[in-house]
């Protein structure tokens, strides 16, 4: 069966450390993988997009890797801050599936001061 798995348990880290979130998928062939941030009561906010032929993408303190052999993406936040506390969602844009995003369940990140 097709699945996108993100750690459903909250990730608690200390301010200043690097947060690493994982997104694993099975039986999908994604053209793109996107990461979104969601705060309570708000809609998802786009962070980064990485294509199937890209290995790594960076934006300020954010870094995403994409391994289509392992079927895994890692999302890193360096020098984390309490303001980074939120739920982070990975979403796949699949080949031959139009333009719809398929979301994982999200991982809640808590950065403690």
């Amino acid at each position, binding site marked *: 069966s097709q699945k996108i798995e993100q750690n459903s348990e909250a990730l608690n880290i200390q301010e200043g450390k690097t947060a690493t979130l994982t997104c694993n998928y099975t039986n999908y062939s994604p053209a793109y993988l996107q990461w979104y941030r969601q705060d309570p009561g*708000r809609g998802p906010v*786009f962070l980064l997009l990485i294509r199937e032929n890209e290995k790594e993408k960076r934006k300020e303190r954010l870094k995403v890797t994409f391994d289509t052999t392992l079927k895994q993406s890692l999302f890193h936040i360096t020098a984390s801050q309490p303001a980074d506390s939120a739920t982070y969602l990975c979403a796949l844009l699949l080949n031959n599936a*139009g*333009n*719809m*995003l398929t*979301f*994982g369940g999200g991982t809640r990140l808590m950065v403690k001061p």
Partner: protein
Amino acid sequence: EAGVTQFPSHSVIEKGQTVTLRCDPISGHDNLYWYRRVMGKEIKFLLHFVKESKQDESGMPNNRFLAERTGGTYSTLKVQPAELEDSGVYFCASSRTMNTEAFFGQGTRLTVV
């Protein structure tokens, strides 16, 4: 530039009633999407408009749901008659082109009692 706006932010209705949700996309965005998140589950795709045409409605759960986008501007999603399992948060998103980042609204929380 105004973001994606959704109305209402909350709606509580009785089973069997009708509810209409509205989404105003970002001006100039031809692509408009509806998603929803039911309790404890992932965000799921409902449908995709390109201008006023339905590009993909494969995620619509049943014929109690009707989406329209007359004139290719704002969109409405009507649920008639509402059932208890329709409760959840309904998100609208828009994008300028396909395969680019999607901007989400804050969502409409629908509760059917």
